[in-house]
């Protein structure tokens, strides 16, 4: 499948501050490392203290600024806590990356074998929690007439892959929520985008497709670099990510990572 190449015209300056959820591994970790390398002060959110601390330490060891917040994005009051504590440490938030996601029960199963409680959990993490965090942070961005809300999505939001019902539906919902939020903030200077990073060699991918050949998957570091390069004025595109496409402000954009 070919991917249209759209020349990117990133006009935003790199964010001074960013919050990344699901930042202890996979794409979240890669985005955090890449941003910190560019000088962004980052607040990292994850459920488990040790892997999160490892990423924070790695960033600090390279001279970057990072804080860890141990939290489950779907817990009650998590959004207010994440928004408040991140701002307490970093100041005004320039970028919020809604990356924390769950597949739901694995191995993935057909919808006819699923149950409501599991679907509700998937929706709580993948749709309701990003909404809550966006709600807690977008008002300040509107006031400042600046800022980015970035929602990490998936082509499972569009393609009817069997057994991907819960995850796919939650991401489809998330993408549409992002489109509507983008329309609502149109003209305020705040940007809202959703991004499909493409398939990556991560724990989540292993949980979903244990037999996948890692050499056919992107490294999350490469996907992270492409995503940031499309958003911000930074020379970041790696050769493998060259054929990425991007749409522009105000609508959900799909950045497809390349696959070999």
């Amino acid at each position, binding site marked *: 499948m070919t991917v249209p190449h759209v020349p990117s015209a990133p006009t935003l300056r790199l964010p001074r501050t960013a919050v990344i959820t699901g930042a202890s591994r996979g794409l979240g970790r890669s985005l955090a490392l890449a941003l910190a390398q560019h000088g962004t002060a980052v607040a990292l959110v994850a459920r488990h203290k040790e892997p999160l601390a490892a990423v924070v330490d790695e960033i600090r060891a390279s001279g970057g600024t990072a804080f860890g917040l141990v939290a489950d994005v779907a817990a*009650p*009051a998590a*959004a*207010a*806590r994440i*928004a*408040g*504590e991140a*701002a*307490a*440490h970093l*100041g*005004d*938030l320039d970028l919020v990356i809604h990356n924390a996601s769950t597949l739901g029960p694995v191995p993935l199963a057909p919808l006819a074998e699923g149950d409501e409680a599991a679907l509700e959990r998937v929706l709580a993490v993948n749709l309701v929690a990003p909404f*809550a965090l966006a709600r*807690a942070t*977008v*008002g*300040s961005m*509107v*006031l*400042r007439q600046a800022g980015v809300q970035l929602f990490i999505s998936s082509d499972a939001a569009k393609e009817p892959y069997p057994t991907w019902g819960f995850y796919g539906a939650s991401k489809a919902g998330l993408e549409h929520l992002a489109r509507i939020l983008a329309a*609502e903030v149109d*003209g*305020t200077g705040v940007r809202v985008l959703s991004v499909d990073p493409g398939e990556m060699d991560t724990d989540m991918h292993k949980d979903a497709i244990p037999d996948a050949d890692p050499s056919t998957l992107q490294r999350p570091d490469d996907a992270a670099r492409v995503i940031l390069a499309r958003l911000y004025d930074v020379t970041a595109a790696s050769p493998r990510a060259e054929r990425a496409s991007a749409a522009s402000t105000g609508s959900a954009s799909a950045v497809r990572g390349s696959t070999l």
Partner: protein
Amino acid sequence: MNAASWPRAHVRQERLLVVDPESGRHDDVTVAALPSLLARGDVLVVNDAATLPASLQARTADGTLVEVRIASLHDDQRASCVLFGAGDWRTDTDLRAPPPSLAPNDRLSFAGDVGARVTSVSSSSERLVELTLLAEASWASLAYAHGAPVQYAYLEHALPVALAQTPYASVPWAVEMPSAGRALSFSVLRDLAVRGVRVARLRHAAGLSATGDAKLDALLPLPERYSIPAETVALVEQARRAGKRVLAVGTTVVRALEGCFQEHGRLLAGDGVTDLILDAHFVPRVLDGVLAGMHERGTSHAKLLSALAPSALLDEALTHAEEERYLVHEFGDHLLVLPGALPRRQLPASSRSPLRYSATIDAAGAADSSAALASTSANQSRKPFFFTRT
């Protein structure tokens, strides 16, 4: 007037009492009408502080329970706090049991094994203490992990932190919500933008409104830090030059802007501490009007209003509000005092303009201008009543 016991679903439908000194009238409208009451080029200044969940439960060394309310955060580890006896917001503040007496070096322990040391006790009241967290704890992390928003007995339920925020809240400097800002919901902000009303921001550490100790209450508000961005100073000065009007959203904005002006003789971008008391001598130098919450007569809010509108009109308006059962407190209805009571003034920028009231000249404060920087005697900065016992 009764307190609103819980946030209502639609801010735009909440009532707004408009007091218009130019026409000598007051009107009942809703928050949705706010943009239409202002003109293109007018400036609203808001306080973008988020509200910290500043109420924490703790134990003394002998296991006695206390409630600790952060009054003022100095840095990650040091804070001024007001202590209460065991209990929480469900009991009327004035009926709360007093806390045990603490002395410097006494320890308090919080949830999550976080400890703090009393570094001093206020000479004004032993309920007001300086606390320093031990180890690598931070007040923000402790508050968000184990704290709850400061709230009062007229609320129906425990208030989730998310509901104690203005729509545009950013960095958690406030220990109580700067609630006048609730009126500027997302859609009201959009309508204001369409109307051409500019919204500028500053940050002010809105403090506690009650302490349970009459002596301490008499000292409120305590000195509170603020920060004014350069673009806000520019917006306000530009509005004044163009003959446009500047309104504060809430008393915390008044304290920050007028406090800054009082200290420096002009608006100056940057950080400061304001101990401005809005009393009978207060004369606004920066602001033309104010959007506030609805409050009872005799409160400090009422004093601010009387600086911006004739007392007879205000009195009539408040009587009307009482008759019409407007709701008060942080989730209550709203009041707008439109510009009109005071003559339009140019803000001094690079040169000083003569003050309108008698003043003592503070020659030591004059910096870069040939005109002396004057400061008022009535509102002369009170020394912070900081702690003498250590």
